[in-house]
């Protein structure tokens, strides 16, 4: 009996488990998945919690709801991977050997990486919204806040869902307007990037949205520390920004297992072939989702497109062929822009987000890089698709490779 082991049962790991369980011969392959948590979080939903649009119950479900009934599931922390021995050591010293390993251990926020960030104001006036705890604490804070300086700061790239910080300030603009107190709130977007977003054309269009919504933009700001007493953030080149409430996107890092196993880069992300998703060091190890060091966005849609490629490549390797399917860096992101509207972007490694219609050229129903109500419905509908199709590995009507059809140069 051969063994396929999946580390991590988040979006990427769960999709791979479902896809592979459907096709691998149960007399030949035993598939095992390991994760330390029993709850699956719909992470894209965290963004809506601070504004009271979603509650905790809207973004959680038991992981077991998404596993095939015959799946071999182990709930445990992972101590170490020993890639040269083809085995994984669990927290309780149990040893799991494998023929093929899929690493899907994701990325986590590390506020400890920035001086003073996890100081006395943490979850009092300084919040993250990339954890359920942070998002809920911020929701409680906003309910009673009377206004002041709201600063959103990105610590450093890469981060999960690079559009989420923009969505946050767009939604804040909408939320405080609807509460009749927008004139009492100064919204300030402070980023280490040279513009509102990572890709030039989208950056300029999204920058215009910030302007239109009266959101102040400070670029090229690399945070060095937080002054908890004076309530300000200070950059490495000693620029200062005052806040009454700081919403931070802390440094994102891969799982510490990678550091313990000597398999990660300086951020604990695993060096991965950007096309085949195979580990650059070990032939029988594959990496998917946020755990990779790929220059693609860290997002569920990306993990979904990768899953289709990786599925084909794993089947090839099992049959003794070389992995030949190639991931193109495809990402597809609905950006909530407030007031019941949204913006959609679709891009890959080589093509930056362009305007046009999606997925049907000239028809849509979604509009790329434009603010429409239909784009917002797309985002709302996505949660339903996520729980009911995506995690279960059922095909969605979107190609894994990006298409130029419908895009305007």
């Amino acid at each position, binding site marked *: 009996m051969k063994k396929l082991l999946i580390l991590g049962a988040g979006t990427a790991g769960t999709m791979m488990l479902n896809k592979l369980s459907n096709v691998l011969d149960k007399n030949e392959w035993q598939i095992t998945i390991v994760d330390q948590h029993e709850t699956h979080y719909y992470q894209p939903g965290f963004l809506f919690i601070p504004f009271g649009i979603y509650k905790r119950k809207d973004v959680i479900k038991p992981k077991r709801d998404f596993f095939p009934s015959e799946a071999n599931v182990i709930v445990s922390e992972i101590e170490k991977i020993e890639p040269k021995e083809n085995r994984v050591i669990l927290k309780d010293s149990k040893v799991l050997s494998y023929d093929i390993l899929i690493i899907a251990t994701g990325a986590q926020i590390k506020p400890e990486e920035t001086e003073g960030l996890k100081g006395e104001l943490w979850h009092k006036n300084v919040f993250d919204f990339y954890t359920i705890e942070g998002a809920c604490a911020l929701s409680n804070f906003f309910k009673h806040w009377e206004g002041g300086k709201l600063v959103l700061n990105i610590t*450093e*790239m*890469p981060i999960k869902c*690079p559009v989420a910080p923009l969505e946050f300030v767009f939604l804040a603009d909408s939320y405080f307007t609807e509460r009749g107190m927008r004139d009492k709130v100064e919204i300030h977007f402070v980023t280490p*990037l040279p513009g509102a977003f*990572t890709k030039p054309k989208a950056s300029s269009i999204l920058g215009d949205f910030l302007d239109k919504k009266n959101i102040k933009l400070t670029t*090229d700001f*690399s945070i*060095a520390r937080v002054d908890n007493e004076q309530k300000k953030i200070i950059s*490495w*080149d000693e620029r200062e920004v005052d806040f009454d409430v700081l919403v931070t996107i802390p440094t994102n890092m891969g799982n510490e297992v990678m550091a313990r196993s000597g398999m990660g*880069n*300086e*951020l604990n992300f695993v060096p991965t072939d950007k096309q085949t998703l195979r580990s650059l060091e070990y032939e029988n190890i594959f990496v998917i989702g946020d755990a990779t060091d790929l*220059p*693609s*966005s*860290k997002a569920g849609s990306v993990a979904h497109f990768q899953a289709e490629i990786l599925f084909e490549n794993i089947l090839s390797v099992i049959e003794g062929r070389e992995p030949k399917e190639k991931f193109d860096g495809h990402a597809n992101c609905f950006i909530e822009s407030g007031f019941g509207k949204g913006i959609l972007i679709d891009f890959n490694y080589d093509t930056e987000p362009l305007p046009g219609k999606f997925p049907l050229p000239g028809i849509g129903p979604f509009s790329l890089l434009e603010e429409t109500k239909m784009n917002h419905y797309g985002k709302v509908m996505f949660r339903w698709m996520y729980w009911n199709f995506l995690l279960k590995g059922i095909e969605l009507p979107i190609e894994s490779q990006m298409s130029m059809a419908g895009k305007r140069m």
Partner: protein
Amino acid sequence: MAVKEYAGKMVELDADGNLAKRTDWNEDVAKALAVEEGIPELNDRRWLVINYMRKEFEAKGDAPSIRKLTKESGVDTKELYTLFPGGPAKKAARIAGLPKPKGCI
């Protein structure tokens, strides 16, 4: 493709204004690029960073991120920002004759 003169040498620049061909680089070109970046003099600490970046690029095919720089070059983040004000990774890469770091997504 733009062509510009540095230290008496005509060199090609890429879309970001960085050297298009690494073979065009030499220490005098580096000094001229540094002046353009607002750095009048390349001292030992700056050369340490520049040489580290060139070595990394040689090995990995991409210029290192600031985090990697500080972890491995022995120069901490604060000093990096003093040595290359405004954007250490980007500026040091340009002076080192390398393309802009891919780093961000």
